[in-house]
């Protein structure tokens, strides 16, 4: 479980996150929904211990990210917005490297690689160097390395960006399986259809502030709109009006 409490983060004069609080529970998919520049990625980077918040705190399964960043990182699987693969390494070598950084070695490491490769249907690309991989194949490697150590909490920053329909469907299926297995899945997105299908819990962020928080159905109902997209427009606009 990931608990974010009143975090704020500024980069010089730019206040990227003002006041964001939410909880992402185990066995559920929590989505940060917001426009570009709303503070979603900054919030997720703070959860991943890549940024230190100026205020507030983040805890991952009870471990404070600010006090024990590596302790928290052991409990997290990170799927960043850029896949960033090493083109001279094979997919298997990627998985082994990240698994070893999480303390796996020997037989458990081999078993973990085989399991994740099977889960993501990577048999045909496992021993190929990642240079020249398609976007879908790159996504598989990035996702596999994020979950190779079977983290309880998985953080994904706009995971479907740049993927084709088949890859999106596959990713969606895997995230649902992870949820069913009891993992805490926290992702960011601005694709309404994807959020509506996947999410158990949506946190709408506008201008670095949480403007609404609940299930997709609750948010649509509370906003009095026919769908999540319309609800998002109404709820974020109301927040901006209040701020003004």
């Amino acid at each position, binding site marked *: 479980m990931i608990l974010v409490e009143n975090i704020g983060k500024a*980069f010089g004069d730019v206040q990227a996150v003002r006041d964001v609080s939410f909880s992402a529970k185990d066995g559920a998919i929590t989505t940060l929904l917001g426009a570009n520049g709303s503070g979603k990625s900054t919030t997720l*980077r703070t959860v*991943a*211990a*890549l*940024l*230190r918040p100026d205020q507030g705190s983040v805890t991952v399964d009870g471990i404070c990210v600010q006090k024990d960043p*590596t*302790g928290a*990182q*052991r409990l*997290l699987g*990170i799927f*960043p917005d*850029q*896949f*960033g*693969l*090493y*083109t*001279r*390494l094979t997919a298997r*070598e990627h998985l082994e*490297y*990240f698994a*070893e*950084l*999480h*303390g796996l*070695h020997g037989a458990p490491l081999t078993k973990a690689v085989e399991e994740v490769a099977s889960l993501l249907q990577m048999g045909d690309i496992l021993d190929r160097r990642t240079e020249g991989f398609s976007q879908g194949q790159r996504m598989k490697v*990035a996702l596999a*390395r994020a979950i190779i150590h079977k983290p309880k909490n998985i953080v994904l920053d706009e995971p479907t960006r740049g993927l084709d329909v088949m890859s999106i469907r596959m990713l969606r299926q895997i995230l649902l399986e992870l949820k069913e297995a009891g993992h805490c899945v926290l992702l960011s997105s601005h694709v309404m259809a994807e959020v509506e299908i996947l999410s158990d819990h949506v946190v709408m962020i506008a201008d670095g502030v949480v403007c609404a928080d609940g299930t997709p159905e609750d948010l649509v109902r509370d906003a009095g709109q026919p769908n999540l997209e319309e609800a998002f427009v109404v709820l974020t606009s109301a927040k901006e009006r209040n701020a003004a």
Partner: protein
Amino acid sequence: MNRLFKVVYRKEMKDMLRDKRAVLAIASYAFGIPLLMAFIFFLMSDDRGKEARTNVAVSGYDQAAGLVAFLENEGFAVTPISLEGELESLPKQTDAVIQLPADYAKKLASGQPIPVELYVDDTSRQNAERGDDVKGALKAYSLQVAGARLITRGVPLSLLAPMAINTRDLAPSSFINKMLGNSLTLLFMFSPFVMAMSVALDALAGERERQSLQSLMAQPISTPLLVAGKWAMVASFAFGGTMLAVVVDLSLLQFVPGDMLPFKLQLTAGGLLLAAVELGVLSMFVASLLLAVSIHAKSFKEGQTYMSMLMMVPVIAGYAKLYGESKLPEFVHYLPIFADLESLARIFFDGTPDLMITLSALASSLLGTIVCLMLTSRRLASEQILSEA
């Protein structure tokens, strides 16, 4: 901690050994330098060999039998030449031309001063040396004639030389030996820079360019440990490549004929071991310095610009040491590269290491390594790097 260090090191080595640029840099430097040296020695060598005699053409040959005999006795090949007016260039296969006046014999007999023109060509070192030899022989003949005249007048020759000067060179190495030796050592100094530049760039600037830094920094490994693993990889390339260059170069130099070498190598097992230790520590320093530069670049291309500026450092240091040693402040002699140049030249060419200088080189390189690694870790842990990544 130790295990994570090994994990990072192993991955980095595997990745970089597959990098054609890195492997090509090592191979081209290690095997290119002997070719460069062979070319330089070829240019420096005397095409005709040491046994070839210096050719001197004498205008007025018929009236200077004594001079001709003296020159031939000194080992010169003397030929007559007919000369009118001033000479503009030396005839082919001639190293010097001596032009005697028409009244040479008459003036010689009457003891009058004789103006003699000596034409030489200083275009090349070899020609200049041969011209100097002829000039020296002419002076010696002049002294011999003067001596003969004084003796016939009852004047002892010792009056001509009131002082007998005996020069004793106290320099640990001769200037020319030291300069040429330092040039070779300088090539070894550049070696860790050349060998490790590409991998150092890829290790940090490359991570930023391919946007893999975020994923890596989100793993449960401390920044200093991550930097240490990458640094060990870069240092391995720097040291491995440098030792390959040293072994290849020194091995090939053993096959070069002694008279073609402008210096004499004094290699001992102990000296080589000491040199290996010193080059190892220098490689550690260079690796840390390259990483400290690489971390400031957002891309490989930007890093190459910074690296080309950094490469000026050993070049400037090397030339300052070679040509301006006496003008450098005292502390400079204890800095990395400066101290290494001196120490390695002593080991390779004098055969007597100066332990004080060697220790200075080791200590300053180690200190530099620690400072550079701390700066790199600090920079890598900064949020600015990640927000730009």
